[in-house]
């Protein structure tokens, strides 16, 4: 496990080193950011998620506010519209494993003075549960074991987050996100899943 972690960090370091020196043209990796998250379904069912983010538009708005004591406060902020593709999984230790894939359009606001980030995202997705062991029983009462038992659902996602821009060599943002995923048609209706994410964004061009 330690070897895998060490190897991953070394690879990331060299990939970043190579891409940060290519300043003439922006490559695929340099025009996108990557996010890696701990994904906790219903708080504690552990999971991981990774995302690829593409900035659709970006604008910086300069704004100041003068207080009564004539002190000028910088209220400038940066607005981004981001399209992201997300893939991940979580494990319910007493039940099943779930794999999901969703696409978000997010609006992210960065306060330039405090480096605080807030974001809101919405988008469609799919979700597949995998049961540990599954048997099917037909009308005649015959029991058969099936492999990869589970169900697939349409799973739109709403995401709300806040965090901070950070000046780490690897990571540019640290965001804590609350993520609501709705599973259609779950039995006879809809079931929401409450997920909490602790996400770190990796930017190759920095």
């Amino acid at each position, binding site marked *: 496990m330690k070897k895998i972690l060490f190897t991953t960090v070394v690879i990331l370091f060299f990939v970043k080193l190579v891409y940060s020196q290519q300043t003439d043209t922006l490559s695929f990796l340099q025009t996108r950011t990557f996010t890696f998250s701990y994904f*906790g379904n*219903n708080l*504690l*069912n*552990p999971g991981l998620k990774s995302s690829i983010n593409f900035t659709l538009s970006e604008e910086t708005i300069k704004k100041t506010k003068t207080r009564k004591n004539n002190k000028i406060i910088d209220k400038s902020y940066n607005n981004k519209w981001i399209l992201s593709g997300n893939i991940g999984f979580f*494990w*319910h*230790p*007493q*039940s*099943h494993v779930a794999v999901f894939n969703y696409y978000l359009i997010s609006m992210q606001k960065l306060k330039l003075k405090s480096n605080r980030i807030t974001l809101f995202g919405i988008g469609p997705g799919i979700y597949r*549960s995998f*049961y*540990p*062991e*599954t*048997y*099917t*029983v037909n009308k005649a*009462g015959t*029991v058969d074991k*099936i492999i990869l*038992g*589970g*169900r697939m659902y349409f799973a739109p996602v709403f995401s709300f987050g806040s965090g901070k821009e950070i000046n780490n060599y690897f990571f540019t943002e640290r965001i804590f996100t609350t993520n609501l995923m709705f599973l259609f*048609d*779950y*039995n*006879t*209706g*809809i*079931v*929401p*899943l*409450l997920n909490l994410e602790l996400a770190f964004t990796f930017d190759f061009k920095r």
Partner: protein
Amino acid sequence: MKINKIVIFFSVITLNLFIGCNKNGLNSLNDHFYVRHAGADMPVYIHGNASEKVFLLFIHGGPGDNGLQYREGIASKNLEKDYAVVYYDQRGQGLSEGKFEQQDVTISLMADDLHAVILTIIKKYGNDISIFLLGHSWGGELGTAYLLKNNYPPNVKGWIEIDGAHDVPKINVELTKMIIKVGNQQINSGNSKDKWQELISWVNKLDTANINFEQGRDLNRKARIAEQILINDGFVTAPDKKTFRDLTILYNQNIITGIFSGYYTYVNNEGFYAEIETTSYTNQLHNISLPSLFLWGKYDFIVPATLGYDAYYLVNTQQKDIIIFEQSGHMPMKNQPYKFVKTISNFVEIHK
């Protein structure tokens, strides 16, 4: 400080992973699998000692509850020492998944689901196992429906009905009588006079011959209030506080999913509730010939003990018994867990 928080966060996650680890072996079985039947994928959990090949299968209450709720508390913990205890989530409840229509949900289909679960357990653990069905509350109605289909395999050796609702129309009538009778006794003894008077005056306004769907639900709520009054006044033993084991079991039930799933499948399904509210198996109980044990709380207002006596007298077997738990309400397994375990063990040892 930040490092401490991160360490605590990941420690809790690691702890959760350990809780999920399975120990397997017939003496300390921790098995989990799904049964797919007629559009529903129902999780089955088997815990305990399977060395004697005796399986106690809980049919949970509700509808809207889940199987693992019955794993909380001392009773199941002690039963698991001697027997393999099976908990399963009925269709549309707990963590069961699937895709089906509301109008397809019927008592008959759910009895077929139970049959599918039993066949799967036999397939997995062998033809020489003994299965005892334990139906609590709504599970009593479902278990009775299953036995009346009379297609159960010979491995099913006994029927244990715990405060089971096999005749809902009769429940409503008996419940109103019981509130009046027990209420007046309590008022005469000077216990919680105001609360009982309030309950009695509410019940007196009902036309017991024509209780509708909404009134049936209200009656169920009043029954819970009546039982709580008796717990507060010391006539019913209060359930033990939840232990760490109970909390981990509670966590694994994934309550948010269960609530939403149950809401769409049952609470918001008037057709199915109408079937439950009008179903009476009393006239068919003579068709049950399996060894039977009826366990009832003396102060069960939700399903009064009159139904237990009906079942005891009407089932068509000499191998039957009824035990009334004097300090219990609707959940004798929580009110008097030691007596509950001993009674079940005695019955199982005779008929296994």
